[in-house]
């Protein structure tokens, strides 16, 4: 009887120790890297949204011309420094980024900069009401997005 009680007390103590140190199995907290992956996917999704919206306005599919500036400004803001969204160590988990982002980081940064420049050019055209060139500037930006996705994003269907 005595040994059972002692064992019982010890197991309670052990459980307390484990709980205290957080080593008991429970739903794993997302790592900082996981959060970055989710964040940048959210940013990329928002860019897709603004691209589609800007395209719809520029192609005359909808008449919300006064909303175009907001979309292109958002694109300019979120492409300002894409490289920051891909720190070392964020290549694991549920990411569609290919290892090349880091193993060929120089080229990746070039593409990111290209997207930034193209989005700025589009935003400038809209700010100057240079509507003749909206289509061409949008196409330039799209090409930048596409080129990076081609070489740095996993080939998986949507």
């Amino acid at each position, binding site marked *: 009887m005595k040994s059972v009680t002692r064992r019982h007390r010890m197991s309670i103590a052990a459980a307390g120790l484990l709980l205290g140190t957080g080593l008991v199995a429970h739903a794993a907290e997302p790592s900082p890297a996981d959060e970055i992956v989710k964040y940048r996917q959210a940013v990329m999704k928002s*860019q*897709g*949204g*603004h*691209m*589609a*919206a800007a*395209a719809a306005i520029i*192609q005359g599919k909808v008449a919300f011309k006064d909303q175009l500036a907001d979309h292109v400004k958002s694109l300019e803001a979120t492409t300002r420094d894409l490289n920051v969204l891909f720190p070392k160590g964020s290549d694991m988990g549920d990411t569609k980024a290919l290892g090349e982002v880091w193993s060929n980081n120089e080229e990746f940064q070039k593409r990111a900069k290209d997207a930034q420049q193209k989005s700025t050019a589009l935003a400038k055209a809209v700010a100057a009401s240079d509507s003749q060139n909206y289509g061409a500037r949008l*196409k330039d930006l*799209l090409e930048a*997005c*596409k*080129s990076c*996705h*081609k*070489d740095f*994003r996993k*080939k*998986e*269907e*949507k």
Partner: protein
Amino acid sequence: MMASRIWRKLALAGLLMAAPSAWGAGADAPSPLIVQGEYVYRAAGCFGCHTDHKHHGKPLAGGRALATPFGTFYTPNITPDAQTGIGKWSEQDFTRALREGLDRSGRQLYPAFPYPAYSKLSDQDIHALWAYLRSRAPVRQANKAHDLKWFVARPLVRLWKALYFTSGAYQPDARQSAAWNRGAYLAQAAAHCSECHTPRNALGGSDISLRYAGTRRGPDNSAVPNITPDRKTGIGKWSARDLADYLESGMMPDGDTAGDLMAEVIDDGLQYLRKDDLAAVAEYVTSLPAIEHAVGKAQKKKKPAAKEDWE
């Protein structure tokens, strides 16, 4: 000494001025046949497969690896080089390759080369494509041997053809409009969409009950989307206009861009097609019967193994 050097420079200058094509003066503009041939070439996507982009290979000189369940194929050199390309081929040889899937010595061609699609090209388009390919720069680059599974052999292709191949040009469907037929022709004969977008059985034959409905095991082990108009698993939410715009620019209705293989197809080919042709293809594809067929992500476990096959 000085004088002869000056004369040589003048002679060179004279030669250059007499060759307006080098300066784009237009006197040597390509013939209408070659222009048409280039158009077919763009729609058919020859450049994409017959160029080794990964290793910065020369255009059409071959060497690109295509990983399949049957092993890895390396595309041949189709420049007009006499030693290593198709420089010795006649137009009849070329036509037979596209129509019948046979090389100039009568050997079976593996249907990794999508002649089941190209067989549907019109005589005129094959003739024009030949003229265009002959006008390309010859490149001396020997073909790399395919790296195929032990049981794969050319004579087996005869059996494969008996089961899965009917040669012959596209026949218009009289019940459909001219535009629809144009779209069907471009999609089936040139762009050969169904070759990638249709699942294949163990023998490598297309499962026609799931035509265009996507496959988990496409080229280079990629997942290829369902492009039938199914709203849940296909592109049913896309309008014909969305699809035509996508084929021209690579932008999807949600603002995202085409994935790497389609980006290639578009960048190197479809973006050069006329707007009315792209609209026709879109009309055809969005008229297909909707097939519910969910194509999930390619099995990640298999991917690394597949890479070893062709690396």
